[in-house]
């Protein structure tokens, strides 16, 4: 850390560009004014962070969340979204800045407890979660290895990010506790959860599959999320409403509308592929649970195309949930 609070951000940036690694700064080329503004907004000088270090952070963020060939507009959109003040605070904490830890404590200690209790739905467990996370943040940062805070990139608020980390910790803890259940209990519980063996292969009209693929592809990603969350993942209307910041009745209406529209699209798709209306309706309504269609590879292929783009060297934007910790 070095404090260059006397020189202007532009001067520092110019110096950084002149002496720094051009390749490293390349994603942000042409965005000097934006970076200078963000530097001022971030209050980085308060924690002694120079604009070179700040620019390095932004390069790291861009490299993590954008493909190498991302255009200036994509970079600008991303940087405009970044919570630079939170990012600077997190990095200062990681660097062991006492003032930053004081700010962190005063700002997030209580909200961590609140978040812990909200996640665990239990007072003592919530406090335990929060204390455990705080110990990780502080202990790892001061003694050994990298603090989980070092993986915070400013995407989403720091408070929200801490909440997410805590929720993952809660899920992991819940999962590990389930593993400790006795073998007999687990086998009894697990029996209900085991997927039924695949049914013997049966012929399925490929037009139905194609029409379904087509109709699902035409849906907005958020609509697909709504359908899958409600019908497959058993999310409640209330949960979906909170996730999408909508009212429950709005979510309910949207699911109604999407489902009805999807059925129509599938029927139309089948009709375009040569089915009569009656055949299409029958194909859609018939119970096909015992039919096995191997489209997994195709769906995975589609999903891979839409996966989050990793950087050239790593895929931190698409890592396992535990990687953050």
């Amino acid at each position, binding site marked *: 850390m070095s404090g260059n609070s006397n020189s202007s951000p532009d001067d520092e940036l110019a110096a950084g560009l002149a002496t720094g690694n051009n390749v490293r700064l390349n994603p942000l080329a042409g965005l000097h004014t934006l970076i200078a503004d963000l530097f001022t907004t971030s209050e980085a000088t308060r924690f002694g962070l120079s604009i070179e270090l700040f620019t390095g952070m932004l390069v790291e963020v861009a490299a993590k969340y954008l493909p190498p060939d991302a255009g200036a507009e994509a970079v600008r959109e991303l940087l405009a979204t970044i919570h630079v003040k939170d990012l600077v605070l997190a990095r200062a904490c990681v660097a062991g800045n006492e003032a930053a830890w004081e700010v962190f404590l005063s700002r997030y200690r209580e909200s961590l407890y609140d978040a812990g209790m909200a996640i665990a739905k239990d007072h003592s467990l919530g406090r335990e979660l929060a204390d455990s996370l705080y110990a990780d943040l502080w202990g790892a940062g001061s003694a050994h290895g990298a603090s989980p805070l070092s993986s915070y990139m400013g995407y989403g608020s720091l408070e929200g990010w801490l909440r997410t980390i805590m*929720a993952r910790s809660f899920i992991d803890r819940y999962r590990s506790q389930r593993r400790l259940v006795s073998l007999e209990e687990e086998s009894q519980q697990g029996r209900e959860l085991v997927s039924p063996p695949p049914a013997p292969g049966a012929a399925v009209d490929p037009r139905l599959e194609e029409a379904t693929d087509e109709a699902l592809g035409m849906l907005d990603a958020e609509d697909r999320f709504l359908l899958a969350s409600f019908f497959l993942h058993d999310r409640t209307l209330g949960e979906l409403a909170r996730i999408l910041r909508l009212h429950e009745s709005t979510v309910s209406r949207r699911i109604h509308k999407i489902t009805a529209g999807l059925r129509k699209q599938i029927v139309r798709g089948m009709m375009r592929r040569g089915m009569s209306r009656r055949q299409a309706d029958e194909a859609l309504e018939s119970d096909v649970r015992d039919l096995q269609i191997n489209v997994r590879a195709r769906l995975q292929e589609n999903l891979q195309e839409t996966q989050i783009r990793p950087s050239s060297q790593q895929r931190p934007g698409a890592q396992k949930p535990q990687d953050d910790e």
Partner: protein
Amino acid sequence: MPELPEVVRRHFSRAMGGEDHPDAGLLTALIEGTLTQTHRAAVFDHLVACSECNRLVALIAPEREVTSAVQPVEARRRWFTWTPVRWAAVGAALAVVIIAVVIGRIDRQTVVPGAPSARVEQVPTASMSAQLPVLVQPRTPRPSSKPAQPASHARQGVPSQPALSRGAALAAAQSRPAASGDVLGENAFQTSMMSDPSAWAELSPSTGEPPTVKPEPAPAASVTAPALPTGPTEPMWSLSEAGMLQKSNDRGHTWAAVAVPSRVPLHALSVLGQEIWIGGDQGTLYHSTDAGQSWTAVVPTANGVPVSADIMRIAFADQRHGWIATRNGEIWKTRDSGATWSLK
């Protein structure tokens, strides 16, 4: 809830178990609504496929007040989308318009011939009313005096005429273009007065009703609508565009500047019989109890802090109860003819 076609369910199921999970930042941004377009589709598609992340997102979504906040809107939309209700609303609106037109014609036919005397009749209730249009009165020069104007005043001030409702008064005032730079304090004042029934009760102890709003034509080169005379021989008052106090003794045909101690531009005027209040830049406030013959400077002070912002509105319900509104949105109230003030 309708059933999802089984084939769709199967497609979703097959996609489950995605390999790479979005990092905590992306999920947080999704919950906070700050996810960029670059990542939006990818994250949502992952949540379709990954039950673990789907559950995680549900867990981190904070409890929000949005439910209670939006519910009334949804409820309103629901009943209003009922077709008969929609047509009934259209019919009711048409009926109101027709009735208003008919009443307007009858009124014009009956009142215009006796306009000058009728205008005098409105005066006892007009001091407050005359001020409200000042709120957002456009700074346009007054058109040349027309004989019909007094009739117009009279027509709207006839006691039997139903007063505009509080909402209509607000709408009438807000529908006018705002004078440049003086909107904030005025709107704050108006909003406060309109939203607080007790304020009207205090200002009009006898009725508790909001005053009527009358679209007043401005006098020559005046900023504000003139304050109507409170008696057959009493003058009309107004503020000129330059912020000077002026008076007309011939019902608005000619206007003469009135000397006041203040040199700053005036923005607000209240006339109630012999009681005149004027307010202007930097908290300037003067009070005359003898129809402008002499003036007393008044400095509204609350908790030792005097008013310092430009005074944009003054309204007095009677000699004792009055309000002033400043450009920065402060509302000051007095219950003792300006001897003491409280800041709302």
